[in-house]
């Protein structure tokens, strides 16, 4: 269904910078590329609000199409070395925790070439048992397996040895015994009829076999799912007792001079390096960001933070569907001209009857602003949702969202193409939660003309700004993360999107500092400022989150692995970290529901002169937002309310609250300590969105609607309605230089 896709190396660019555009076609031999400015991306024909503006660009034109492959699946690789080439007899060993031992052949430690077959490979075979394979490089292959399938999610010490003198190949798997179950140790030995094991001159790999993509680029195949801890390479065939002694020794090279390499994955957590603590320095790197900061075979439970006891966090968890950088070749570049106005842009690709928009954000020239208002694009959230598969993977998705699964063309493509990677809402093929999301790949739900979640409904706000003639700059979460309050300081007001859910610590610090000075924040969304996430300082465009404790987690986080590897911070809800959104914007998430949205009623506080500007032109008894694209109302999808115990400022005014929520709208898990029979919107008085306003001592202010659906009510009646009116009233006052006086 999709015939053309693409991505850029950066989402946020400044005039003067150049971005690279990578494109792949699926069938068509040619495609056309043009530049457009995205004004409103909602292409539902009956609404007639879609708007894009074609912009002249030097790259506009026809290009030859080609299919560019993606090598998904994580692994680690150690470059070839004389220390590897000179081996005759040897042993490879590691602690492993396989998660899908029955999925088919999986490489554990390999130095292998498929054709003609040569080298060695410690692997899990098609029966799920440990096996060792050697080849003479001329097609002669000998393999021995234990014949005993490995149990999933249990630790084993696995090893394979080749004794060149005795011409013997051995393999052995020893479980860490549980007092509650009986896992079997197993071993096997056989004669090797080959003249020699070939030195294939290949790198050594963990968690996969080597492969080559159609472009000639090195990649991997037959990926392993699970953890590997403390792999070692010893230049002699060890006995079982010798193998155990090396395996349990943190520094085996100090006691065994034949240790060639002793990799220690507890080092370098947070990056892509892997270190050999042994004498030969056989260091390497990981590919496609496997999970690190993971419990090792020796995890005692005494510590939950990998930084405090790294020696118990020496495992890397590999997945066959991890992905960092799709690695496509660039089709063309675009030097963003100095006079291109700040905004949301896209390279529009057209091939046959299909089209795709490669979306990016143009900031004003560095160090300048071109408007008093900044639209803060929620790119951390866009990344967290990137290539969302929940509707294709989760049995209860329809019951959660009160809908019948209705996929988009992009979803259909993703279902068929695992190699495009997952979102942080998904689970890996082995059932573990996805912790990382990359923007260095086509993101099929971050574009105009896609379903209304995350990015695309934010363009309702952009369309409304354009309709009202309100000028704005566009800046992004990644910019805020890297530049902090300095990015915001020159703006009179900052406007959020509909769902600014994910915040790194520097992003939150930057926003708080902005408000503490004189900043003004207009939060036109819901379920915002909820989860702590982190950007990798080493791998640009990579986001991490760990869904610790509670919240709408979609899936369990692995106990003992709640600390982010990129920063060492405890993951989870900002509410659980002592910085609830109520302490930033007055309101925080209370409920979600996707079938019917509610509407707001003015509260007594709306008649306070402090809030008078908000309701100019609005009747005292008027229902506010009893219309809209999402659920037919302005208060819906995910909604927020005040809570003084969580930090709502004492002088905050709740100027309106919502009603009319459905029986399919439920309290979020963090709002209830115990399930009960009145947790839905038809029964529970706490389920409401609170429209909230408060001033700050620096002359600034915060206005929050606390609802994702608010923005989708803006276009109603040609953007002429009370949601649009209130929004405009607030923006125009917030852009006025007159300081907001603190009450009292």
């Amino acid at each position, binding site marked *: 269904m999709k015939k053309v896709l693409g991505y850029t190396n950066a989402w946020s660019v400044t005039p003067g910078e150049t971005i690279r555009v990578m494109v792949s076609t699926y069938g068509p031999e040619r495609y056309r590329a043009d530049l457009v400015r995205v004004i409103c991306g909602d292409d539902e024909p009956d609404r007639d609000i879609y708007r894009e503006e074609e912009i002249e660009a030097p790259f506009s034109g026809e290009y030859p199409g080609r299919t560019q492959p993606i090598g998904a699946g994580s692994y680690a690789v150690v470059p070839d070395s004389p220390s590897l080439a000179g081996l005759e007899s040897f042993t490879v060993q590691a602690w492993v925790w396989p998660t899908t031992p029955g999925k088919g052949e999986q490489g554990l430690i390999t130095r292998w070439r498929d054709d003609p077959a040569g080298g060695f490979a410690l692997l899990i075979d098609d029966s799920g048992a440990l096996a060792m394979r050697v080849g003479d490089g001329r097609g002669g292959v000998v393999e021995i397996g234990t014949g005993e399938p490995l149990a999933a999610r249990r630790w084993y010490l696995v090893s394979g040895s080749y004794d060149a003198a005795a011409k013997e190949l051995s393999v052995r798997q020893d479980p860490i015994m549980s007092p509650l179950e009986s896992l079997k140790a197993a071993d096997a030995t056989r004669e090797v009829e080959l003249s020699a094991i070939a030195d294939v001159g290949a790198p050594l790999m963990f968690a996969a076999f080597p492969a080559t993509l159609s472009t000639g680029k090195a990649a991997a195949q037959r990926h392993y799912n699970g953890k590997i801890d403390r792999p070692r390479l010893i230049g002699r065939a060890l006995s079982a007792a010798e193998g155990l002694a090396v395996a349990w020794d943190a520094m085996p090279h100090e006691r065994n001079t034949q240790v060639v390499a002793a990799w220690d994955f507890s080092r370098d957590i947070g990056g892509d390096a892997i270190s050999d603590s042994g004498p030969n320095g056989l260091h390497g790197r990981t590919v496609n960001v496997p999970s690190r900061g993971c419990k090792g075979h020796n995890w005692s439970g005494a510590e939950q933070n990998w930084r405090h006891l790294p020696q118990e966090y020496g495992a890397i968890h590999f997945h066959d569907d991890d992905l960092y950088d799709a690695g496509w070749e660039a089709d063309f570049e675009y030097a963003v001209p100095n006079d291109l106005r700040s905004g949301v842009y896209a390279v529009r690709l057209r091939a046959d009857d299909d089209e795709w928009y490669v979306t990016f954000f143009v900031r004003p020239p560095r160090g300048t602003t071109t408007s008093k208002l900044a639209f803060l694009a929620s790119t951390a959230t866009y990344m967290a949702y990137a290539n969302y598969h929940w509707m294709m993977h989760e049995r209860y998705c329809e*019951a959660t969202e009160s809908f019948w*699964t209705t996929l988009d063309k992009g979803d*259909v493509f993703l279902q068929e193409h695992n190699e495009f990677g997952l979102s942080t809402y998904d689970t890996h093929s082995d059932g573990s939660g996805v912790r990382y999301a990359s923007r260095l790949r086509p993101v099929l739900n971050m574009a105009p003309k896609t379903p209304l979640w995350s990015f695309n409904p934010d363009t309702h706000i952009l369309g409304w700004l354009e309709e009202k003639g309100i000028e704005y700059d566009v800046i992004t979460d990644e910019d805020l993360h890297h530049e902090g309050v300095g990015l915001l300081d020159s703006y009179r007001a900052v406007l959020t999107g509909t769902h600014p859910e994910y915040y790194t610590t520097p992003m939150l610090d930057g926003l708080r500092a902005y408000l503490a000075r004189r900043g003004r924040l207009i939060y036109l969304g819901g379920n915002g400022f909820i989860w702590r996430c982190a950007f990798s300082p080493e791998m640009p465009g990579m986001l991490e989150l760990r869904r610790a404790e509670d919240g709408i987690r979609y899936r369990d986080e692995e106990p003992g692995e709640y600390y982010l590897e990129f920063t060492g911070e405890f993951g989870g809800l900002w509410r659980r970290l002592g910085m609830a959104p109520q302490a930033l914007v007055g309101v925080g998430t209370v409920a979600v529901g996707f079938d019917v949205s509610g509407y707001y009623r003015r509260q007594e506080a709306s008649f306070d002169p402090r809030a008078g500007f908000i309701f100019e032109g609005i009747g005292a008894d008027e229902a506010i937002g009893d219309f809209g694209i999402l659920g037919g109302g302005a208060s819906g999808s995910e909604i927020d309310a005040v809570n003084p115990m969580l930090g709502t400022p004492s002088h905050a005014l709740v100027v309106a609250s919502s009603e009319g929520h459905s029986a399919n709208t439920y309290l979020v898990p963090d709002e209830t300590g115990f399930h009960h029979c009145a947790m839905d919107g038809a029964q529970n008085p706490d389920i409401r969105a609170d429209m909230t306003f408060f001033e700050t001592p620096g002359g600034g202010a915060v206005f929050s609607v606390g609802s994702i659906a608010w923005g989708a009510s803006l276009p109603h009646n040609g953007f002429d309605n009370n949601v649009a009116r209130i929004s405009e009233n607030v923006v125009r006052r917030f852009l006025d230089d007159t300081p907001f006086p603190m009450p009292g």
Partner: protein
Amino acid sequence: MYDIDPSRTDLVAEFRKNPGGPYSSELALVVNRLRVMPMTDRHILVCTRRGRQWTLAKMPRERGTKLELYEDRVFDDYHEGTWELFRLRWKTVTGEDPA
């Protein structure tokens, strides 16, 4: 788990009349039952032209494989498509076609 009574044609008629809900409490139980079926072989819709066309499809058994698209089962009304899902899933659960 709630057991759908295939003789309750009144609930079928209610859905046919108001497929988008809200539903009566009894019909809500039926709809929820039909929405928690296993993902494998679940009938779904694919939007093949925004706001204009939906095509019946069936989810595959494995990740990374094609879903089955029934190109001869195309709807220009979304609610007609959801009625088809209701009908097919009802039939799967009860063994009887409610149409």
